[in-house]
C-alpha cells in the first residue's frame, strides 16, 4: 500500500471550522454508533516533512479529529514516549510558528478532520495568547488543549477562544472531586478530556479499573458536551470498550511508539490507526 498525498485540486472544502466542526465530528461518530477516534502526533517529529506525511496518513486512515502536539522542553504531564518525541523535534529546530505551518500545509493538502493544538502554557504566553489563538485558527486548527492551564486560570485564553469559536478543552482526572468535575465541565468547550488514570501519558496494557463509573460521573456534569477518554489507550479492544460509554478516544503514545521509529512512519501510522477502527 502506498500513501499518496492528495493534490490541492482534490481538496474537499471544509464546510465548517472551529467549534461547529468539532461538534460535527462527534455527531458523525455518534450517528454511526461508535466513538470518535482522535490520534495524537507531535509536530516536527521525527522531522517536519515526516510529521506532515504522518498527519495526512492519520487523516486518510479515518481519524475523526487529530491532536497536534506542540513540542515543549518540559512536558510534565507526558510520559517517556511523548517526551522523547518532543525532544527530538526541538533538537531539529521545531518552533510554534513551524508547527502552525505544518498544520496549514496539511489543510492545504486536503486534511479536513478538526485539529486540536495541544501545547503547554509557556510557549503560548511567549507567543502572545491572542496571537497564538488567531494564528492557530489561520493555520486551520479548531481548538486548543493546554494541559497545565487549569480552568481557574483560563479566563483570558478562553475569552480569545470564545470570540473565535475555537475550542478550549478542559480536563478531568481520577482525583477530581465532583466540584472540580463541575468546573471543568462548565469551562470546557469542544469536549471534556477525561484523563483515564492517575499518571502521565503512555500506553498501558489494561484500562483503568472503574473507568466506566468515572466517565459516567463526568457525563452527569457534561450537559451534553462530548467526553473523550485519553491516557493509556493503546489497542482496538480499548477503543471498543471505551466507545461503549464515551464519545471519543485519544491515542497518543501507542501511535508514536508504533510509528515513530518505523522505516516509513506515515505508513505505520496509517496501518495503526486503521487497526484501531474496530468498526471498519
Amino acid at each position: 500500500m502506498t500513501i499518496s498525498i492528495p493534490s490541492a485540486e482534490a481538496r474537499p472544502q471544509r464546510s465548517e471550522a472551529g467549534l461547529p466542526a468539532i461538534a460535527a465530528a462527534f455527531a458523525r461518530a455518534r450517528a454511526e454508533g461508535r466513538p470518535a477516534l482522535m490520534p495524537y502526533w507531535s509536530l516536527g517529529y521525527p522531522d517536519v516533512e515526516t510529521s506532515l506525511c504522518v498527519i495526512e496518513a492519520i487523516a486518510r486512515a479515518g481519524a475523526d479529529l487529530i491532536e497536534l502536539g506542540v513540542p515543549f522542553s518540559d512536558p510534565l504531564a507526558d510520559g517517556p514516549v511523548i517526551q522523547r518525541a518532543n525532544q527530538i523535534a526541538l533538537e531539529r529546530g521545531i518552533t510554534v510558528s513551524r508547527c502552525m505551518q505544518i498544520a496549514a500545509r496539511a489543510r492545504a493538502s486536503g486534511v479536513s478532520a478538526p485539529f486540536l493544538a495541544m501545547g503547554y502554557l509557556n510557549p503560548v504566553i511567549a507567543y502572545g495568547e491572542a496571537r497564538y489563538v488567531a494564528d492557530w485558527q489561520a493555520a486551520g486548527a479548531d481548538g486548543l488543549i493546554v494541559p497545565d492551564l487549569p480552568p481557574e486560570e483560563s479566563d483570558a485564553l478562553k475569552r480569545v477562544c470564545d470570540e473565535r469559536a475555537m475550542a478550549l478543552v478542559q480536563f478531568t482526572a481520577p482525583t477530581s472531586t465532583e466540584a472540580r468535575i463541575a468546573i471543568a465541565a462548565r469551562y470546557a468547550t469542544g469536549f471534556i478530556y477525561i484523563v483515564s488514570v492517575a499518571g502521565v501519558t503512555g500506553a498501558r496494557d489494561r484500562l483503568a479499573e472503574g473507568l466506566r463509573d468515572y466517565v459516567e460521573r463526568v457525563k452527569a456534569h457534561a450537559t451534553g458536551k462530548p467526553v473523550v477518554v485519553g491516557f493509556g489507550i493503546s489497542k482496538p479492544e480499548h477503543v471498543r470498550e471505551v466507545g461503549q460509554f464515551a464519545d471519543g478516544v485519544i491515542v497518543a503514545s501507542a501511535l508514536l511508539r508504533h510509528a515513530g521509529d518505523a522505516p516509513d512512519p506515515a505508513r505505520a501510522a496509517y496501518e495503526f490507526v486503521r487497526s484501531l477502527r474496530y468498526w471498519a
Partner: protein
Amino acid sequence: MSTQTGFEVARPTLPDARGKFGSYGGRFVPETLMPVLDDVTEAYEELRDDPGFRAEYEHLLKTYVGRPSPLTHAQRLSAHLGGAQIYLKREDLLHTGAHKINNALGQALLAKRMGKRRIIAETGAGQHGVATATACALLGLECVIYMGVVDMARQAPNVFRMRLLGAEVRGVESGTKTLKDAVNEAIRDWVAHPHDTYYIIGSALGPHPYPLMCRDFQSVIGKEARAQILEQAGRLPDQVIACVGGGSNAIGIFYGFLNDASVQLIGVEAGGYGIETGKHAARFAYAENGSEPLSRPTDCNPDFPRGKVGVFQGMKTVVLQNADGQIAETHSVSAGLDYAGVGPEHVYLRDIGRAEYTSATDDEALDAFHALCKFEGIIPALESSHAVAEAIKRAPRLSRDHILLVNLSGRGDKDLNTVLQAAQAQSEA
C-alpha cells in the same frame, strides 16, 4: 532581646487565596494534581496554627537541627575590605550543612500528619535531597529522590549520603538531565501516586501552597537574624544579602526584615560565565518589572536566554527562556543556583521595589569562597559564596559603621571538587 527559635507565621496578606503574589505564583499543573494541592493547602492552613505541630517542629529545630544558628561578625574580612562590617548568618552550621533542612523537616512533619507514608523530592546539588532523606529517616518515612544523571556524576558524595540515609536515588535521563528535569520527574511520579505520596519541593517554588510553606519554614532564619544583630550590633543592618536560586534562603532571611523600611534587601543570582555569554542563571538580568525585557544587542539571537514572565513547573514567574518559550539551559558553578525559574514572591518583591536583584559570576563567587576560607576560617557553599561576593563588592565603598548581613546558607564541603577543578583549570590556563 533574646534570640528566638521559632516558626514564623507572619500572617502577611500574600499570597492571596489563589496563591498569588501580585500576579505571580498560583497553580499551573495537570488536573490530577489540583485536588491534591487543595488537600495540602487545607492541611497546611490547619497545621500552621496548631500548637502541637508548631511545638513539635520547634523542638526538632532546637534539639535535632541545631537552631538557633549563630550570627558571626566577619571581623578580619571586614577589616581587610576596609569598609562596612560584614555579619554572617550561619546556616552552614545546621545539621546536614544548609538551610534546606528547615523546610524539609517542616514539610516531612506535615506529610506525616497528613498520613502520607511516601516522600518524593528533587535535588540538584544534593543538599535538599540529603535534607529530605534525613527528615525521612528521622520520621520513619519512605523516601525517593529524583536527581539528574549529570548532577549525580557532579555530586557523587551526596548521592552516597542519601543512600546511607535510606533514600532511593533515581537518576533522571530526560531533558538536560539536571535539576529542572528532576523536578519534572518528581511531578510525574506525584501525578502517578497522588494518594499515598507527598512531594517536598526544595525551594520557594512550584504551585501554591509550596512557595508559602517554604517561606514560612525558612522565615526562622530572618527572625533569628534580626534579634541577633540587634543584640550584637545594637541596630538593624543596612543591607541584607542572600543568594537566589529558587530563593528559599533569601525569602527566609528577607522575611525577618520585610517591615523594616530602612533595611535594603538584596538577592544575588548566578551570573555564570557572565550575563553577556548567555550561560548563567540570572533570571532578573534582562527582565524589567515583569514586562518586556531590556533590549540588548545579543537579543537578536532567538535562542539567547532571557528572563521573561511565563509559566514553569506549576507557577507563574520569571523564567529564563528562548524567544519561542522553550525553557533555557542554565549555567552556574553552583548547582544549587543553576535553575531557570525563580520563586514567585521574589518577582513580586522586585516589582514593588522592596528587594533588588543582582548577580555574581562564577569567578566572583570562587574568589569570595577563597576569601572567606582565608580570612574567616569558614568554607562556604558556592551558592552562599555568591552572596559573599556581593558583600565584598559593596563593603569597601561603605563606611565602617555600615552593616551588611549575609546569609551564609550552606557549607562548602560538597563543593571542594568543583573548587579544586576550577583552581586546576586556572593554573593550566
